């Protein structure tokens, strides 16, 4: 009778709690499976947080690179115009060189862009400006932000100034090139303008290739996020399979346990009833 009752109670507690496992020893293998699955789910929420931050960074870079690219194309047009103008028209040259200067200033301020309070082109450092306004020298470090977007995957999500714009004094550092062009156009030096345009192309290509690299990282990130969304669903299902009670099954178990318990009760009642005591007088 006691056994029948304990079976019934177990089924009832499964239904009321909705859980098949309420303690480790109920089923150690499944309990550990479900613990692992739960842990994975919690971990993937953490990775998702990292991935969201990474996505924000990469999207921001993409947007900024577009602006850089636009401005550089404009600078090239201006420089070509300066080249064609040749020695004539000092005023025109002044106007053109002023425009280059404006582009330079604009790009310098763009290079100070921040995402979530962090400078985007200063490595992991926190200088007042990524590039000095007058010396045009890089003020940051070579550190990179990395985001742990999946187990063992630390995705670099930042681009340092030298990576995007060329290292100082290399001849193709974007701001130095613009500065040089500004001077050459003002001076009307055709050869200087021509070599400046070549350097500008080098700088622009570097920027474009960084933009592609950011694009590649974005697609890696997206692939991992999609895959994780699927995996999380599987894990949730696994955890549920491991620890949740199958309600239909438990309900059937409960009613059959109840039938067994009632049968035991009625048999017991009959056994206890039949005694000679009732029949002797």
């Amino acid at each position: 009778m006691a056994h029948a009752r304990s079976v019934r109670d177990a089924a009832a507690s499964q239904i009321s709690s909705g859980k098949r496992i309420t303690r480790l020893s109920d089923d150690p293998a499944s309990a550990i499976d479900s613990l692992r699955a739960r842990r994975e789910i919690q971990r993937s929420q953490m990775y998702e947080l990292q991935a969201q931050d990474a996505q924000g960074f990469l999207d921001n870079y993409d947007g900024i690179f577009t602006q850089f690219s636009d401005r550089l194309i404009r600078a090239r047009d201006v420089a070509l115009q300066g080249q064609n103008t040749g020695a004539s028209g000092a005023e025109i040259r002044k106007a053109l060189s002023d425009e280059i200067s404006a582009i330079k200033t604009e790009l310098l301020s763009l290079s100070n862009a921040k995402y979530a309070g962090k400078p985007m082109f200063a490595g992991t450092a926190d200088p007042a400006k990524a590039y000095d306004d007058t010396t045009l020298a890089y003020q940051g470090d070579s550190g990179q932000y990395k985001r742990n977007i999946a187990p063992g995957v630390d995705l670099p999500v930042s681009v340092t100034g030298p990576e995007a714009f060329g290292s100082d004094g290399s001849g193709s550092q974007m701001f130095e090139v613009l500065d040089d062009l500004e001077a050459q156009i003002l001076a009307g030096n055709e050869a200087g303008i021509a070599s400046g345009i070549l350097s500008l192309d080098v700088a622009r290509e570097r920027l474009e290739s960084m933009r592609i690299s950011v694009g590649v990282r974005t697609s890696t990130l997206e692939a991992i996020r999609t895959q994780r969304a699927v995996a999380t669903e599987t894990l949730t299902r696994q955890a549920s399979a491991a620890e949740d009670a199958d309600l239909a099954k438990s309900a059937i178990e409960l009613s059959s346990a109840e039938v067994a318990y009632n049968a035991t009760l009625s048999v017991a009642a009959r056994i206890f009833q039949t005694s000679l005591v009732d029949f002797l007088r």
Partner: protein
Amino acid sequence: MSSIQSLNSALSGLMAARRHLETHGHNIANAATEGYTRQRVTQSPAGSGIVSRVFATPASDPGGVTSVGVERLTDLLMQNRLSMATDFDGAAQATEKYMMRIEDAFAEPSDSALSGQMTRFWGSWAALAISPESNAARQQVLAEADQLVYTLRRSDTELSDTLEFASGEFNVIADEINNLTSQIANLNGAVVSAGSMTTAQSDLWDQRDRLVHRLSELTGATQSVRPDGQIAVFVAGRTLVDNKTVLRVQATATSLQWEGDSTPVEAAGYVGALHTLVSSTIPDIKSKLDNVAASLVTQINSLHSTGSDRVGNTGRIFFDPAGLTAGNISVSTDPTNGVYGHPERVSAGVPGNGPFDGTAALSIAALADSATGPDAVYMGFLSDLGVKTSSARARAQSASLVLESAVRDYSSVAQVNLDDELAGMTAAQRAYQASARVVTTIDEMLDDLIRRFGRVGA
């Protein structure tokens, strides 16, 4: 046989029937008494033997019936089986009780237990890696570390409490065993002085069997009955009680020993299980939990001390390196390098990089996925604990089933069956009525003889 003798013979029948009734009444009265063994009156025809004389003559045989005594309806084999089942059950129940308690100390699987706690701790490091410049993220890491330390210590305290409680049981058990054995020795004396088997004698045996039963539950004791009705009780190859001599036991912190020579009692039953729990199982679990704490401390500290804190200093200490057990793990309070109360000292970056570097925090967060990391150690520990507890539960369940069937078999022999007793009572009642009728009949015969003898035609 003379008529008077016949009267006596009938009288003996009356008395025997009454004795039967009394015994049945005693049985029925004790139908619900635990450990009671039903009794039967044994009787034999009186003087059935031929009296040995020069000329053998049965003429003086008085006839009738005598009650030889009372028989205890028990079965030694089943009694032995019962005591073995009791021994195993005692051991299994003790193990189950303690393993369940230990399992409860960890409250897994649940998000609020240690496993969830550790995952949140790693999550706080990952969040710090995203915002290494933030003091709030550092506060969060410290808060989670506090929680983790608290949970580890609480689990450890519960384990220690359980261990202490189990050790404390030895004192209680030693007293109980000494009490039981001296009672058994007393009963041995009483059994001898009570002489042949009577109702009272049988009750003494029952009482003694109950004590031995409890003793085998505690220690796996076995008994053997001497011809004079006294018993000897053995535990682990030594004689605990022999007739009226008793070997006393005493408790130590972790075991039970013989009082005489202070050697351990290698008992089975509850004591045996308790001894295993106290001397190996619980300390083993404790040391495994300590491993989890130690791996947390050493692995995090080695990564943390090479990292650089918010203002670029290195060599900061996260956990107190001396606290390598679950009981004394703590966040370092070192005045110059400890992070406790100094969130700015929590190191997230590596030297040489700027304030936005989260490399060190990232590698600490990655410990969560390391195959030899604290999480892996803890998971291994949990699965070990789960398997042990589950097998203890299974053993307890099967032991109680075996005990149940042994009890059932034993009681089917020894326990009072009311139908049986009532049938016996009816038989005894009829026998009494018949014997009374015999007396009446003889009386009538004698009446005829005395009053009417010699009268003719009256």
